[in-house]
């Protein structure tokens, strides 16, 4: 791997911390910072900065007050270990300093564009061929959204959350918090109080979104938290495929990322949500890295609706994330495909929840965990069959692969069945990379490292196939980079 080119002219360069994380650059742009710490004033300040309507401020304040009551009750059940987080030592709002919101790409800070170019995001017009509309969120504020015109013609709304609050308040008010209420859990409550931006997508009745929508998240400011909030609504018969990617600079201190994603699918609608998560995982000694505490949930509310989560989790010092589907509509479908890779001192406690309420609802869970170095990966998943879920079906498969003898792989499924006609099957296995397979590859002239990579890539193939094509390539590369140094 080449040493990363650091575009930063000041601040700590990533190379002194870690030369293997190629996304570890910082960008030197002026940030508009709220004071450190969380208080009612900060919540009001964020709301005022975003020129939000009264109802939203009220909602934030309700969340903040609820969070204050939860203050000392951070969830403790996950299989993760970290120093207590000082919530008063975090910047809750950091926006690139621009006087007005950018109207077009030309008004976006060139350094930000340079950063995104480095990230490889097709942000510019010339990237039309890639067929991706991007909403890039740097620290807390959406920077630019491409392809507005084309989407508008189809009646699709795809814009930063703050813009949606201004331009489509009725939609935001109707759906915000409808799937993940502000009382949901510690981190969702925190997010509800301080979320600064995120993406909003609305696909009207019968529309099939012509291109893939994409958001790119990046934490740039040191000691800042990122709290974005994404809301996607698919009306009857609509379809959308949504992609999300994340990176962060290499920092010695931990950064907090507590996002909330809400999906709503009405009758016959389908939402496909793909994530490529590559937050800074911490260095080789386990210093630094992002704490990724994310709440993602979809409501398959309509008949025959479908929500599909695909995630490739290679980054973050700690991942705490359970993309879930509430299968409320009859015949609705939920899917969860996941690859979670931990190396170095990373910890991942991730999985899903499938809550079957409607009749003949179906869910499929395929989770692959790869543990290397000193990493610990836990699959934690709930399948719940409610009394109304006649004829519901679930199939769960979790496989774990161990690379090296200092890592751990854990499987903790929760199965709750309250309906005798529901069927559920769960199977899981844990093993290391087969010696026979390795021997065969090596005997054909491959290096140990290449052989490992090929076998691991094959192990994840089923999941990568669920990703949109360009993402699948990137995921495979990411896997290779993340595994470097783990074998051989």
């Amino acid at each position, binding site marked *: 791997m080449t040493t990363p080119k650091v575009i930063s002219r000041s601040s700590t360069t990533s190379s002194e911390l870690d030369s293997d994380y190629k996304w570890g650059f910082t960008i030197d742009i002026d940030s508009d910072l709220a004071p450190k710490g969380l208080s009612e004033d900060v919540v009001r300040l964020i709301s005022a900065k975003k020129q939000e309507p009264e109802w939203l401020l009220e909602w934030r304040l309700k969340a903040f007050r609820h969070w204050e009551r939860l203050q000392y009750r951070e969830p403790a059940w996950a299989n993760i270990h970290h120093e207590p987080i000082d919530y008063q030592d975090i910047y809750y709002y950091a926006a690139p300093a621009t006087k007005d919101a950018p109207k077009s790409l030309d008004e976006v800070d060139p350094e930000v564009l340079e950063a995104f170019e480095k990230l490889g995001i097709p942000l510019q017009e010339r990237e039309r061929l890639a067929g991706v509309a991007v909403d890039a969120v740097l620290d807390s504020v959406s920077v630019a959204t491409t392809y507005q015109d084309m989407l508008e013609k189809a009646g699709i709304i795809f814009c930063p959350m703050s813009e949606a609050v201004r331009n489509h308040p009725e939609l935001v008010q109707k759906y915000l918090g409808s799937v993940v209420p502000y009382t949901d859990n510690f981190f969702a409550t925190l997010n509800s109080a301080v979320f600064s931006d995120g993406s909003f997508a609305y696909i009207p009745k019968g529309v099939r979104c012509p291109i893939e929508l994409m958001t790119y998240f990046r934490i740039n400011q040191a000691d800042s938290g990122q709290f974005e909030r994404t809301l996607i609504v698919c009306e009857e018969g609509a379809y959308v495929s949504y992609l999300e990617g994340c990176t962060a600079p290499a920092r010695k201190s931990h950064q907090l990322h507590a996002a909330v994603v809400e999906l709503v699918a009405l009758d016959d609608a389908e939402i496909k949500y793909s994530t490529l998560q590559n937050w800074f995982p911490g260095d080789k000694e386990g210093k630094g890295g992002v704490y990724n505490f994310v709440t993602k949930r979809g409501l398959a509310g309509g008949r025959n609706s479908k929500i599909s989560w695909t995630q490739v989790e290679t980054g973050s010092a700690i991942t705490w994330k359970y993309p879930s589907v509430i299968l409320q509509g009859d015949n609705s479908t939920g899917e969860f495909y996941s690859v979670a890779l931990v190396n170095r001192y990373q910890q991942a406690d991730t999985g899903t929840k499938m809550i079957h309420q409607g009749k003949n609802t179906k869910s499929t869970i395929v989770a692959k965990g790869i543990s290397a170095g000193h990493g610990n990966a836990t699959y934690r998943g709930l399948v719940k069959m409610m009394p109304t879920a006649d004829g519901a079906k679930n199939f769960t498969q979790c496989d774990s692969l161990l690379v090296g*003898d200092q*890592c*751990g792989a854990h499987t903790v499924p929760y199965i709750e069945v309250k309906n*005798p006609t529901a069927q559920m099957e769960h199977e899981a*296995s844990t093993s290391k990379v087969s010696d026979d397979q390795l021997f065969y590859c090596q005997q054909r002239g491959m290096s140990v490292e290449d052989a490992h990579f090929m076998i691991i890539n094959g192990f994840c193939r089923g999941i990568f196939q669920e990703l949109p094509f360009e993402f699948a390539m990137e995921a495979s590369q990411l896997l290779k980079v993340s595994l470097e140094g783990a074998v051989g």
Partner: protein
Amino acid sequence: MTQAPTRHERYFADHQALAAASPGPAWLDTLRAAGWERFNAIGFPTARRGNERWKYTAVAPIARVNFAYPFLPPDNVGGPEPDFGFAAVSAAADFDGETGDAIRQHLGRLASFEDDGFAALNTAFLRDVAVVRVPDGSGAPVAVRVNHAATDGPDVEQRYARHPRTLILAGRNANLTVIETYTGPPGPRYFTNAVTEIVVSEGAQVDHYRLLNESPAAYHVGVTRVHQARDSSFSSASFALGTALARNDFAVTLDGPGAYCSLNGLYYTGQGQHIDNLISIDHAQPHCTSRLNYKGILDGNSRAVFGGEVLVRRNAQKSDAQQTDKNLLLSEDAEVDSKPSLLIYADDVQCSHGATAGQIDAQTLFYLRSRGLDLAAASRMLISAFAREIVNTVKPQPLRDYLDSLFDRNIAVKTLPVGR
């Protein structure tokens, strides 16, 4: 977390009265006092946040009743069960002599009460211990049974708590079969708070059968702790017929290379019943093998909880672990909560687990009916086949026959499965 002081006071008064009425050797008194101290500090467990061990079972029904200690002599061991041709062991252990030394050495060693309120309470009421001890090097097969029979207490109105304790010590190369049964009268709701400790020494082979056949209205909390040394083999089969609330907390530590354990279980719950099986296997040393297979049949509005925990420690290479939990739901209102977890810290291992829940397969039913069986007979046949996989792991023929008829009688297809 802690309960209302009045209930603790009742337990405390009984604990002190017991200490005064049945003073044991000094070490026993110390152990009792330590048990009480711990129980007083932590009380009964709650399903509060993060307490994954009690996630699906609330012990409030037990915690809120003012149970008294019956102060009965331990002459009730033997009980109404058939004897299966096995010699009975009395619970009136002799704390003197060589056996006394062995008891002192092992009692309370495996069943830690540090974070277990029930084990602490049992220890606070230590009086009668059923001891099964096979000395080192005696390879001759030994077969005994321990029956903890609850009888009606002196006061019909009062509810009683019993704290039976069993200590099984299998010496080197011992060959031991133990049947441990819990029975009780169908009278008022009583509470059995049992603790069993089993030490399986090097090369020993122990077959352990645990049969829970208490009153349908009783409460039962059983803690079983097994420690296995090198090259030992431990086979267990637990059978439980529903009680109002039953908990089977069964933990095995594989603490020597070559140790093997096979844990099987069958539980049946009917209307208003709740059963919670928490089965933990700790692979603490390399080259150990474990098999875990539990099956449940749920009827009425009953609820079954299964928690499986297989832990493979960092140095436990070449571990081989399999874990299965299968549940058959016979009623619309039954609920099963299953959590078969694997925690693995070593890489050269073969571990797998599986869990299923569902009703009787409609196609299989149809097949049998097309062959002329009526719905009830066909259902009975399939339920019986489902149960028999576990019953067939029982080696003593008289016990197997007894279990067959016991389960057949209880699962008499009161509610017909819905063949949708």
